[in-house]
């Protein structure tokens, strides 16, 4: 088991390296520099000397291959470099922003799992019923709404009209502040999870071994309990793992709208300001997080499903 986990983790290393290379190459050709970004609010540009000096300080004056060499050498020492903007190590910048994003994406996933999976289950156990039709129409609608639009509407409705929740910000990081952005972020994965769960349960319902279970004289509830749930879980788990990636990606939009101080808004900001080391670090961190979650999912699947070899 342990060696399985280690092996799965080792397998992520090439991906992380490839991501590092890809991101580096992409952002080495981006137009504009951090120095030029300092003038974009119209308060006047930096003077040419300072700009030049800045580019030199940040190593942007070197040719691309030299920069890449330095970058890889840094990475090898687990050093992500210095942020242009904060003039602090990227790692400490990321550390500040990681927790809110984790909070938000976990909350969104919890929301979508806790509601989506049971909903899909119930829908599948009563296919064609009112609850099935309503939840699936709801699910397909949930997948079709632009996210920031939904967030904005929720903000107006729940914060302004009803006054139940604060409309924005991290506040004390508590549930009151977390709820709206997490729900806005969680609607799409909820819809998808409900659909996946329903499809998975329906598929397993028709499996031969479920017929065997019925032929044993089991009640439907027992069939679900003893035979259906675990099998459906494997499929649902895989979907959850992949959804984490989507959720973290979409968090960019939600964080910006709700002024949530996470990695997503940091990333957008850093792209806008050409704070390239932070961009690279943030993407790497997001990728690593995604890979970690999916490794965890793989391990869980391997525990549930003995057919997956982990020796």
């Amino acid at each position: 088991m342990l060696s399985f986990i280690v092996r799965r983790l080792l397998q992520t290393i090439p991906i992380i390296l490839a991501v590092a290379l890809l991101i580096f190459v992409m952002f080495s050709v981006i137009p504009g520099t951090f120095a030029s970004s300092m003038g974009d609010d119209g308060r006047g540009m930096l003077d040419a000397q300072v700009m030049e000096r800045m580019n030199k300080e940040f190593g942007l004056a070197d040719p691309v291959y030299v920069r890449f060499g330095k970058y890889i050498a840094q990475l090898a020492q687990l050093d992500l470099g210095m942020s242009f903007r904060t003039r602090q190590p990227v790692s400490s910048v990321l550390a500040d922003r990681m927790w809110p994003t984790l909070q938000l994406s976990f909350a969104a996933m919890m929301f979508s799992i806790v509601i989506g999976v049971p909903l899909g289950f119930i829908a599948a156990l009563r296919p064609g019923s009112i609850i099935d039709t309503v939840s699936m129409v709801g699910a397909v609608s949930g997948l079709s709404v632009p996210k920031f639009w939904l967030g904005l509407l929720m903000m107006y409705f729940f914060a302004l009209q009803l006054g139940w929740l604060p409309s924005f910000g991290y506040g004390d990081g508590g549930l009151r502040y977390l709820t709206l952005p997490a729900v806005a972020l969680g609607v799409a994965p909820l819809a998808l999870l409900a659909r996946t769960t329903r499809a998975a349960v329906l598929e397993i319902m028709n499996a031969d071994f479920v017929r065997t279970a019925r032929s044993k004289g089991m009640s439907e509830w027992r069939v679900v309990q003893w035979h259906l749930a675990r099998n459906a879980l494997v499929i649902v788990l895989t979907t959850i793992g992949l959804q984490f990636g989507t959720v973290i990606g979409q968090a960019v939009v939600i964080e910006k709208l709700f002024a949530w101080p996470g990695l997503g808004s940091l990333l957008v900001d850093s792209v806008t300001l050409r704070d390239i080391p932070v961009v690279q670090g943030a993407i790497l961190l997001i990728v690593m997080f995604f890979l970690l979650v999916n490794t965890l999912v793989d391990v869980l699947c391997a525990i549930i499903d003995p057919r997956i070899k982990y020796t």
Partner: protein
Amino acid sequence: MLKTFAIASALALTMGGIAEAQTPRKGGTIRLTAPYGSSFANLDIHTSNRAQDEIYAKAIHRTLYNWDSAANKPVLELATGVTASPDGLVYTFKLRDDAIFHHGRKMTADDIIWTFNRLMDGTKAYPGARYVRIIKGAVDVEKGQAKTISGLKKIDDTTLEITLTSKVDPGFYFHAAMTSIYPADEAVKESFNSKPIGLGPYKFLEYVPGSRLVGERWEKFYKPGKPYADKVSISIMGEAAARDVAFRNKEIDTSILGPAQYVAYQGDPALSKGLLEVAEVYTRNMGMNQNFKPFADKRVRQAINHAIDSDLIIKRLVKGKAYRATGWLPLSSPAYDKNLKPYAYDPEKAKKLLAEAGYADGFEFEWTATSNESWGIPIVEAVIPMLEKVGIKVKIKPVEGTVLSEVVSKGEYQAYIWSNTSGPDPLEALKCFHSATPQSACNYTAFKNANLDKVLDEAAASEGEKRIELLKKANAIVQEEAPVWFFNYNKAVMAYQPWLKGLQPNATELAIQYPEELWVEESSPAAK
């Protein structure tokens, strides 16, 4: 000739229509917003020239001078008096002896010298260097040829002598937050980056990156009785729509408004009472690259100014949240010429001018623009049909702000639309059209006019009323030459909650407030 500035103690006197005669209440939390993006750069204000960062800097830090919003000029802040030598190059400051850093130590001349030396560190490229560079010997430090700035001399702990390289008013330079005075002993420490120490009215309490910065009252602040509130909290909120909801939801005390919300708030009986409007020192304009053949002709540039119905755009699209630009210098500039008439909307005249310039059939140009609602593509979209009427076709080249500043400073454009600082110092603002100013600095249109150069040089050498008169003349030349389409001067609008008192109409940037002047009444949700 000796010039003495009075101590700026009368700040609270003229608060426009906002300040009512009442006793400031103590306690509570002031909840400001930082509307220009979703973060602060960091907690070292020396590294950033952004308005966004200046908002928090004014709570924590102090500079040698401050901008007096009421008098619309810089006034002494950390000094009680200053004398200038007859040649206007040597300034002797009598520093405050009651300014105490948040860690409890008194400020001395050494702190200012240390701060200015730090800003000139050539290896670090601090943007504030551009201000300190007017001090003699600063450039040598920047180039690594000297260890300390020779033009800075400590007479005693509270007396500082500064020698300048040219005859300018240092007040326009040393009020910028980028020149905030740091405590020499503490600022060298690593911890300073996460726990800044300043001279400002509020002591740093906490910072949630990307979310908010909170300061608590600094009891030993040098202005007696101030600050009033216990805490100041600055929420970072770049998204206007979200800010709108939060403001209506009474979660924040101030919000900077865009045109759409300006209209909405004006129309709302409750909200319209809490609007603070200021003519800011920004000129929105379309710069025309004179290396692009049609724009080399003055008549074409004038034709464009005539072809666009600027008033209509301001009224309908910008919702009146701007003032029509007559020339380069804005309303709030000391050298603003009330008698200058803006280019009239006159398509026929535009056509005539174009024909004279040899473009009777019009031409096509590429217009580089960002998505900014006040000086970006939405404006361009409204202009396109107007130019089309006189035969000029426009292709939009959408870019990000970062790219805009890069292409403009390199001259890699045909036309751009931007908002540029045109103050507070009118000389500094107009120098951008001096042929000696490089394109990368601020002469973005690479403008050259011998006549203008002469007038500007004269203005620099003169002072008082004469300088103002010369600057007005220069402004008129710029208007006549029309290197840009003079669109508008920004009207900044801040919405504030009825319980928030003491706001200042800061023309340099309305969002920047001196929090020691603010207080909240009992009715605030955060009054406790």
